[in-house]
């Protein structure tokens, strides 16, 4: 089976035709992963709101879906395991069991177990690791008695034989079954008939006990109970009637087609309660009118007036409800619009982005050639092409952008588990969840963020007792935030813990030979020493951190993303780690400039304007000067000098005024060429430490131009002039 297929939860998976069912299992794995993540999130929220019925339902549904899809795709172990967990949560749903920390811990552990099962469905591979039986034992402890599926029990209770009315494409019948009191002597047992009804489809059964006399008057051989059954089935009416063939004469039987499916779909609302009761001849129309003229709810009024029994009202209400549910299922589009989504393989997306990149380059070349030719028809075509490829570029890159919120939520569990393990009380606060980043960046950021978080929890936040002694609240706060700023994303992890001691760090660095003993460093520089390999000031190595291999790996990871990381800290107040990342790794709008024979590109997002500069008053070799721009003093840098480009500059140079980190800085170049679609190509490891350049791009004529990293440039220049 190839093409598109719909999985159990309705998501559409598009795959090419492939043999075997591996592809389905893979699809299930992905779906299960998502379900598990949601499940964990809901469980953690439940901890804070144990009575939230919506959350409990969410958990139950997730378990249910896992069970069903698991069975469908051959993950039988998962199906079997989640069945028991689901049962417990069913009880929770019904209010029989309450949410307790123990239950949540157990359920979270179950999520882990399911994850483990997902990877290794063949349990025989490592039976020692199988926590399944242990967990199930724990769950069974919550069940008051063994759950026995007894069909006859179901008859006397208000139970559904399914999750409400399923969309089976059938009709709803109301069957009123009043057996003769002597029915037992005729050999008939009403229970069997009810069971037969249930075999035809989901039923809602109402037993009416109004005819049951007092205990002293009961004759055991008589049947005093009669039933209303709402049956949703696609079976024809005759089949329903056939069930009662043998006792037709010994009972009063009414089978009414309550509503056909299409009727229900078209009708805006089903019949009102009063109509239903009148239809059933439970009350007379006049009584209905009289009751309606009062203010109370109809059902209550009628019951109080003795016109109907409570059960009759309940039964009629259920009919109404059943009809509503069928309507709701039949017309999903009429309710809140759900955004449909489609899952695609990540490398298909990458391939698409690459293609768009190549397209953009060729389009730039066409534009250049067309401009040179001067053909006006071609120029208008080229403009249209440019607009289209701009849109294509933006939306393709937009596909890759995901909000970082999903990553942040994953960390709640980590914080919870880790703080429990270490005996600390820590709250995780997040902000800026809607900040979007390139999907690859988010992926690669995962590990560094985890490590930094662990660090804050392990070394930053103190034990509750210590915190109290220091006059702080017992519960520590770790904050994760993300925001856009200029062409960058800034992610911050801060804690209100013990902070870092610059003296200790400096001493350790000297001890490790990382800096000279008499080196003069600012506090910020000292704090950033911890990113050097082999550095660790932890007094003891915990399972979490302290081995000294973490921070430099973190820095490496962030470097690879062409980002930067910084730490700031105050003893006893806490620390802040700031990670700056470029918004996208792929294509940006650039401004092409020329210095000497070399071409450079500056990201257009930071460029504010271009101004001419005549050469008088500029001293040769002077790094930074200031110009007066409409009353504001703006410093500038000569790229020619900093990049040591030979030759003489033109008499009138250009300053590109940029805004970087809140400040305005000018870059002096020979000429400003114009806008340029810049497909970012990495320069490679060799040039990793070159400051001021963040990559290269291909010009219209096929040669390369270098992309300026203006913040990096400024940092380098200020360091150089400070020395």
């Amino acid at each position, binding site marked *: 089976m190839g093409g598109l297929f719909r999985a159990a939860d309705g998501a559409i998976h598009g795959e090419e035709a492939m043999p075997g069912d591996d592809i389905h299992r893979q699809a299930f794995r992905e779906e299960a992963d998502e379900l598990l993540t949601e499940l964990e999130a809901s469980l953690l929220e439940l901890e804070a709101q144990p009575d939230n019925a919506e959350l409990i339902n969410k958990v139950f549904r997730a378990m249910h879906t896992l069970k069903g899809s698991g069975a469908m795709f051959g993950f039988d172990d998962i199906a079997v395991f989640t069945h028991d967990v689901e049962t417990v949560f069913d009880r929770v749903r019904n209010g029989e069991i309450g949410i307790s920390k123990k239950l949540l811990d157990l359920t979270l552990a179950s999520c882990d177990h399911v994850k483990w099962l997902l990877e290794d469905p063949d349990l025989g591979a490592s039976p020692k690791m199988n926590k399944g039986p242990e967990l199930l034992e724990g769950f069974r402890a919550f069940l008051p008695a063994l759950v026995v599926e007894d069909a006859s029990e179901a008859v006397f209770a208000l139970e559904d034989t399914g999750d409400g009315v399923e969309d089976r494409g059938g009709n709803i019948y109301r069957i009123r079954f009043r057996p003769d009191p002597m029915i037992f002597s005729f050999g008939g047992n009403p229970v069997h008939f009810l069971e037969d009804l249930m075999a035809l489809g989901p039923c809602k059964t109402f037993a009416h006990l109004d005819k049951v006399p007092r205990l002293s008057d009961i004759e055991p051989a008589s049947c005093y109970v009669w039933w209303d059954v709402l049956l949703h089935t696609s079976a024809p009416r005759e089949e329903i009637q056939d069930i009662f063939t043998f006792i037709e004469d010994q009972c009063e039987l009414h089978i009414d087609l309550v509503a056909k499916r299409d009727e229900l779909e078209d009708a805006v609302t089903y019949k009102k309660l009063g109509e239903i009761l009148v239809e059933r001849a439970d009350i007379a129309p006049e009584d209905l009118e009289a009751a309606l003229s009062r203010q109370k709810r109809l059902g209550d009024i009628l019951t109080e007036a003795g016109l109907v029994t409570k059960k009759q009202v309940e039964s009629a209400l259920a009919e109404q409800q059943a009809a509503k549910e069928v309507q709701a299922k039949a017309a999903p589009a009429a309710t809140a619009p759900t955004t449909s989504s489609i899952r695609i393989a990540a490398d298909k997306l990458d391939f698409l982005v690459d293609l768009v990149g190549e397209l953009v380059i060729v389009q730039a070349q066409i534009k250049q050639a067309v401009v040179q030719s001067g053909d006006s028809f071609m120029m208008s075509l080229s403009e249209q092409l440019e607009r289209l490829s701009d849109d294509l570029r933006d939306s393709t890159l937009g596909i890759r952008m995901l909000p970082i919120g999903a990553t942040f939520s994953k960390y709640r569990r980590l914080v919870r588990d880790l703080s429990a393990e270490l005996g600390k009380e820590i709250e995780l606060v997040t902000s800026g969840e809607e900040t979007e980043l390139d999907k690859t960046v988010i992926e690669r950021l995962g590990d560094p963020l985890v490590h930094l978080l662990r660090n804050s929890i392990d070394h930053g936040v103190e034990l509750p007792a210590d915190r109290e002694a220091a006059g702080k609240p017992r519960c520590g706060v770790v904050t994760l935030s993300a925001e856009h700023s200029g062409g960058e994303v800034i992610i911050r992890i801060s804690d209100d813990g013990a902070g870092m001691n610059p003296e200790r760090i400096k001493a350790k660095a000297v001890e490790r030979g990382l800096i000279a003993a008499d080196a003069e460093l600012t506090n910020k520089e000292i704090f950033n020493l911890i990113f050097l390999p082999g550095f660790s000031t932890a007094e003891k190595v915990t399972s979490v951190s302290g081995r000294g291999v973490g921070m430099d790996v973190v820095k490496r990871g962030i470097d690879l993303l062409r980002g930067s990381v910084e730490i700031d800290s105050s003893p006893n107040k806490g620390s802040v780690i700031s990670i700056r990342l470029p918004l996208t790794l792929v294509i940006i709008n650039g401004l092409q400039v020329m210095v000497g024979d070399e071409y450079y590109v500056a990201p257009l997002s930071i460029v504010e304007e271009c101004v001419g500069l005549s050469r008088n008053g500029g001293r040769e070799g002077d790094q930074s000067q200031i110009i007066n721009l409409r009353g504001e003093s703006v410093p500038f840098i000569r790229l020619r000098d900093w990049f040591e480009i030979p030759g003489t500059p033109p008499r009138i140079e250009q300053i590109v005024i940029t805004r970087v980190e809140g400040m305005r800085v000018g870059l002096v170049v020979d000429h400003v060429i114009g806008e340029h679609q810049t497909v970012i190509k990495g*320069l*490679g490891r060799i040039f990793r430490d070159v400051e001021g350049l963040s990559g290269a791009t291909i010009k219209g004529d096929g040669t390369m131009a270098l992309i300026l990293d203006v913040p990096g440039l400024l940092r380098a220049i200020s360091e150089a002039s400070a020395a």
Partner: protein
Amino acid sequence: MSELASLNDNQYLTFILERELFALNIVSVREVLELTNITNVPRTPEFIRGVINLRGRAVPVVDLRMKFGMGRTERTVNTCIIIVEVVLDGEAAVLGALADSVQEVYEMEASQIEAAPKMGARIKTEFIRGMGKCGEQFIIILDINKVFSAEELAVVFDPGAGQGAVEPQEAQLNA
């Protein structure tokens, strides 16, 4: 390519740097290009000439003559860029090397190759894998992984040195 080439690991691409004959095992050689415009990357050592666009990738180009202290490679009609693949810091990296001209692929058995001389060679002995012979002429077989090692290519800046003072770590080559 590496699997196939290991069957022919006695084949060497010979090329000329200032009238001296050098060779590289073709295992490391990807292709040979005509000299195109090289985009200079500022504030890098002189022997790193810049980058070129190789099918959409930025590939750094090294001037071997300058690295070996033979003066800057002149642009002539024969000048080529030899694209090599080396292992840099545990990862495969693609680099270009300038050559005055490229000769032929020459086969040399291990028995025909002598060890590098301990001294007297113009370039560091650790760059030399061995000495071969083509008729009367000696061929200096280079170990490209040593020539293009991370240390040799280190583009390190001393922040205290102010502008422009960039000393690569292997300046001792300039004999």
